[in-house]
């Protein structure tokens, strides 16, 4: 038994398939065009995603590096200062424990005018641990010396010492100097300190000039100065009690 197909029907079928093929081809072309159009966009999205992931990896790597440094400091026997720019606090620490904490009223970064702010030197210092800070002006502790005579009747009487606030006057501003020209300058709010007594007229006239000259002389050896303003009592307390050779780190996360 054979099936005969009507030629007219065959022709009709061809027409139908041609009618169906044309939109399909058009759709295919449109799809290809869309793909061609979207491919760069997809590539761009991938690149953006990769960039975001790279940024995240970089941030994590930096945070880990900071944590490692903090851990190294905490493992040592030395005292260290940590500045938290976000919480505006300066902490004196030992072995990972905060011994005292001071609120920082104002923070400034002072750079020699020859160093532009865009320079790497402006930011690079903040990623390091600065070792063995030296107080300037030096804190001089008056020690009472008693020579024992071996005779109780001639032994000198031991004086009752003054309160620490009376014994050690803190200046209105002082520095903690580190190697390679980095220093922290601590200023109190009122600008008054032990060194700010009212001087005679000529001295008052000469003092700012002398200070400017000294500053400029110092500027030759300084590369970065971080200026922190503390409450008067805090600045004085820090000056009196800062342990010697204290390290310093900025916790910039």
């Amino acid at each position: 038994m054979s099936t005969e197909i009507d030629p007219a029907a065959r022709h009709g079928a061809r027409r139908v398939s041609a009618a169906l093929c044309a939109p399909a081809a058009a759709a295919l072309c449109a799809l290809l065009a869309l793909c061609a159009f979207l491919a760069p966009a997809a590539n761009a999205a991938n690149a953006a995603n990769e960039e975001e992931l790279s940024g995240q990896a970089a941030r994590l790597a930096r945070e880990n590096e900071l944590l490692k440094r903090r851990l190294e400091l905490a493992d040592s026997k030395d005292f260290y200062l940590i500045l938290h720019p976000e919480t505006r606090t300066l902490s004196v620490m030992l072995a990972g424990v905060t011994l005292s904490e001071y609120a920082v009223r104002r923070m400034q970064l002072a750079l020699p005018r020859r160093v532009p702010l865009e320079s790497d030197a402006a930011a690079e210092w903040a990623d390091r641990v600065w070792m063995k800070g030296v107080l300037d002006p030096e804190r001089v502790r008056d020690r009472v010396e008693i020579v024992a005579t071996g005779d109780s009747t001639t032994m000198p009487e031991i004086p009752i010492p003054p309160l620490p606030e009376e014994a050690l006057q803190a200046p209105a501003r002082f520095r903690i100097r580190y190697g390679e020209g980095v220093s922290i300058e601590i200023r109190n709010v009122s600008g008054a300190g032990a060194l700010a007594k009212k001087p005679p007229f000529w001295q008052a006239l000469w003092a700012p000039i002398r200070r400017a000259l000294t500053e400029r002389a110092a500027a030759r050896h300084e590369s970065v100065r971080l200026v922190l303003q503390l409450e008067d009592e805090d600045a004085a307390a820090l000056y009196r009690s800062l342990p010697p050779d204290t390290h310093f780190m900025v916790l910039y996360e």
Partner: protein
Amino acid sequence: MGILYESDIGPVIPAALRVPRRPAPLRRGWVLVLAVAGSIALTAVAWLLLTGFAAHPFPQAISGRMHRWGGEAPALPAGMTRERQIAQLTAERRRLEAALARKIPRGHYIVIDQTHNRLHLMRQNERLMEAVCSAGSGMVLLEGSGRKRTWVFDTPRGVHTVLRRVEKPVWKKPDWAFVEEGLPLPRRDDERIEYGVLGEYAFHFGNGYMIHGTLYERLLGRSVTHGCIRLGRENLRRLWKDCPVGTPIYVY
């Protein structure tokens, strides 16, 4: 002798009308001095403006710089994806944070500011008690005769630990206590014993240093000790309650 005409000597002005002129050399001298002084002043001002330090707000001024400069992603090892690397870095951060957190004692600990004569009883960064104490005087005692020893009465800075707790402590006076009073050193140990001077409790933290009570509470707040930490009675009782052997002591 030639003939002198008026045009040669200028107009003839009567002496009464002549304006006295300042001597020219003097005026030139002043101009010169002013010019030099002005130049020096300008140079000085320029020098002041162009040298020295310029202040910028921190950290805002270098925020972008810091992020950019810290923005180098670590290199990817072969066969590792960025996601995997981030997971590793995150795990490492957790480990480091935990290690840092472990540095803070779990229980109570003592922080002593020997400059301002303050003792803080702490737990997990929380201040439970602040007490006025007395720390080392910093006095230097020189032995005038005999062994010519020297003692410096400082409280040692650093991390210490409560090694031993003693109730009703007895003071065994060291040599310096006799030297300081100009007394001869005793031959027998029992002559060194003194009762009641250390208060109710004592916490030994090594090398003869202690936190203890005192008979002279009026001197608390002043640096009068030989290196030990003196504390008032009530505060000492609180320490006795909260600080077992092993309690860390941080002195700065």
